[in-house]
């Protein structure tokens, strides 16, 4: 036998992805909110010489889709017909989960049930008569705990060793069965008969559309008959019958706990969803995320900075002193000065990813959407749109894909246009660089203000777009709020390492390439002062355009343009532009390689200690002293900017075209028109806002 195609299907947030990760050792994205997986993902494993092809699908509550991601699941099941379906259910919510199961059983595909989240099921005090449960549903079921790998072996054994039978679909009341028989002849060829018949009775639009005119006519008649017989729409009738069947099964098999316990979730929700405290708590949490990110990573950034600029640069220069001068310049100025500056900020991203993973895994994400619903409605979006926006704080690209969980096309487009204003991790290095020079005392506050400005701008743009382009109102808020869960370290680490890996890959490819290109632009003709090079001339020519925003020199403009490729490039470019011409202060005291290395190691230990002190030592920021000498970049920046124009430049970078990959995602999801709209928005808006900041600041006497 060849490959076995196994599809994992179930409600959102029941642990389908976690289960696949446990089986195949993959690192697919898991998170504690509904709608993490928004596209089909695959993994392969070999079990006893048999190759299994596992397919992770977006979670669905039924096989009648409301969103694009739900459509992916349905299409896969109908068109690609997997060999086996693993129906993953959340054991603590069997009634609701089995609603989908009844539909799956009608597809005529061999199915097994994974009773996941079995740990919580037990601790809540439930119990299940497994044999009876299997008998009544006519399929095999295995209790699993995906996060701990429990039950995975048994599940695999079921899939690989036994011939899984095609399940017998549930039978409903005689009256309904009569109507099912009646529509059966009109089921289009190639569609599973019973499943499709029921979908027709449920008035599933996608199926009704596929019927020929004649069939459609006949079916309409049957639906009318059904409606007058039951006194309800076919949709309600079938739903009630399905639940009737499920309740029958559960009555005989499930024992519910007696008496209710107040759970952790009840306690936390009383605070996080409180009508008065909800929003302030949200703001506090976001503030803490950025405060801790900054304070914690500060000392480590200083260390990395020193490590790259003093240690790596020094010894690499020494090692390559035999090479032609231009090549040395390319390596030292272009690659170490450019890419190195970007890599300096790895600790920053590490901390950011850690705290975002904490938000995603704890279950708070869905709560943020819940409390923001009322505010979001003002800008014409449902609270659910807030999930992609928070994801956008990490990276805008997955945020664009995350819009797939929104029901209406209008909401999706509007959200995608606003996501780029959410300050992503790649923009943090820019703030770190500038705040370290100009706002040392209030780093976290100034950076926090960037996020707030991003949100306020998004809200304002949202209101305007709603008024002129996206009329109508947002889709109703319907969202499941998962229980709070304490994230395991392993999960957090997976999440962080995947993101960090992606960042390093980006640094090694796109950013390095851009830096080399930029080096060429700055150095042709070689040896000329930067201002007379190709880039210098071009940037100088357009620089006057930016005068109103307070940027009076050409270098920041020259950095912003390649920054469109990836935002990290801005700091790298500044590193190169200001590094060039500044001759390295030679003549440092001579030290040996091992001496230097030892110094770095000791410095690292100190940095880790400082990081802890900075994070937990006090609630206020700025407890750590910046120890490293001011680098050439910082020095140049402090000359070229005033605090006000630095702030204005940060705002410009915040709102400026996010990056080429985000634009690519928008193009892929929405096409040319929306991409152009996004580019227009993210050039005009930043220009206007920065100008307002600068002119406004000058008017009230700030410099």
């Amino acid at each position: 036998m060849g490959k076995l195609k196994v599809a994992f299907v179930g409600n959102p947030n029941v642990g389908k992805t976690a289960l696949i990760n446990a089986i195949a050792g993959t690192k697919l994205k898991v998170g504690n909110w509904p709608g993490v997986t928004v596209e089909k993902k695959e993994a392969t494993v070999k079990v006893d010489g048999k190759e299994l092809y596992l397919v992770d699908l977006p979670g669905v509550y039924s096989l009648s889709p409301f969103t694009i991601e739900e459509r992916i699941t349905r299409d896969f099941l109908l068109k690609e017909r997997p060999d086996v379906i693993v129906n993953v259910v959340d054991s603590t919510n069997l009634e609701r989960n089995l609603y989908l199961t009844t539909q799956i059983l009608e597809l005529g595909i061999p199915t097994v049930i994974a009773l996941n989240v079995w740990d919580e099921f037990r601790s809540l005090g439930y119990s299940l008569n497994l044999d009876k449960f299997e008998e009544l549903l006519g399929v095999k079921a295995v209790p699993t705990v995906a996060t701990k790998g429990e039950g995975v072996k048994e599940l695999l054994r079921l899939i690989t060793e036994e011939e899984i039978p095609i399940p017998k679909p549930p039978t409903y009341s005689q009256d309904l069965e009569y109507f099912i028989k009646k529509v059966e002849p009109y089921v289009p060829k190639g569609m599973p008969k019973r499943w499709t018949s029921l979908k027709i009775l449920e008035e599933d639009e996608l199926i009704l559309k596929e019927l020929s005119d004649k069939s459609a006519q006949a079916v309409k008649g049957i639906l009318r008959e059904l409606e007058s017989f039951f006194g309800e729409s076919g949709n309600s009738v079938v739903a009630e019958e399905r639940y009737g069947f499920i309740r029958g099964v559960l009555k005989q098999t499930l024992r519910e706990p007696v008496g209710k316990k107040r759970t952790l979730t009840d306690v936390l929700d009383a605070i996080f969803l409180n009508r008065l405290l909800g929003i302030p708590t949200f703001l506090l949490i976001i503030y803490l995320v950025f405060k801790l990110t900054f304070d914690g990573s500060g000392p480590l950034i200083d260390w990395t900075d020193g490590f790259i600029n003093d240690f790596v640069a020094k010894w690499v220069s020494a090692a390559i002193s035999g090479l032609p001068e231009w090549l040395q310049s390319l390596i030292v100025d272009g690659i170490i000065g450019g890419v190195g500056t970007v890599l300096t900020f790895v600790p920053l991203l590490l901390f950011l990813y850690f705290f975002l993973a904490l938000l995603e895994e704890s279950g708070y994400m869905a709560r943020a959407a819940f409390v923001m619903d009322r505010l979001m409605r003002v800008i014409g979006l449902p609270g659910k749109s807030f999930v992609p926006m928070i994801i956008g704080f990490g990276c805008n690209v997955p945020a664009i894909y995350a819009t797939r969980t929104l029901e209406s096309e209008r909401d999706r487009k509007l959200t995608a246009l606003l996501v780029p204003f959410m300050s992503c991790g790649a923009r943090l290095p820019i703030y770190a660089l500038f705040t370290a020079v100009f706002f040392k005392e209030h780093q976290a506050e100034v950076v926090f203000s960037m996020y707030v400005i991003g949100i306020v701008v998004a809200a304002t743009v949202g209101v305007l777009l709603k008024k002129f382009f996206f009329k109508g109102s947002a889709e109703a808020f319907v969202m499941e709020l998962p229980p709070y869960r304490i994230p395991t370290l392993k999960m957090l680490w997976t999440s962080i390492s995947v993101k960090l890996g992606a960042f390093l890959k980006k640094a090694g490819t796109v950013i390095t390439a851009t830096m080399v290109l930029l080096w060429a632009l700055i150095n042709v003709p070689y040896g000329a002062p930067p201002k007379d090079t190709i880039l210098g001339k071009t940037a100088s020519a357009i620089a006057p355009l930016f005068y109103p925003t307070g940027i009076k020199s050409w270098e920041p403009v020259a950095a912003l343009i390649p920054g469109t490729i990836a935002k990290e490039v801005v700091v790298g470019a500044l590193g190169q532009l200001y590094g060039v011409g500044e001759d390295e202060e030679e003549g440092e005291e001579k030290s040996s390689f091992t001496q230097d290395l030892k110094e770095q190691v000791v410095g690292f230990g100190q940095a880790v200690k400082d990081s802890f002190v900075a994070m937990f030592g006090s609630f206020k920021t700025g407890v750590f002293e910046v120890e490293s000498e001011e680098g050439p970049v910082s020095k140049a920046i402090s000359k070229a900017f005033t605090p006000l124009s630095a702030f204005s430049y940060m705002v410009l970078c915040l709102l400026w075209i996010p990056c080429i990959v985000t634009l690519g995602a928008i193009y892929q999801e929405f096409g040319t028109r929306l991409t152009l709209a996004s580019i227009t928005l993210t050039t005009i808006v930043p220009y206007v806002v920065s100008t307002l900041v600068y002119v406004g600041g000058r008017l009230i006497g700030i410099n």
Partner: protein
Amino acid sequence: MVSLPFCGEGKEVRVREIKGGKRALERLSSLGIYPGAKLEVLNTKGGPVLVKVGESRIGLGFGIASKVFVEEER
């Protein structure tokens, strides 16, 4: 019979009727909210309505929640 947003918080209720279009109906029933289902009302003011269906908590915006008519159990 009252509509969901006007229920007392902390009450256990049973769904009697859903006065909505096909779409709303299908969505709610797939989430376990259908005529005959038992719900616990957790939160009705200051944002979406929050109900507990079995062990799951579901947030419903005012518009869709007001289509769900329920009767108090106790």
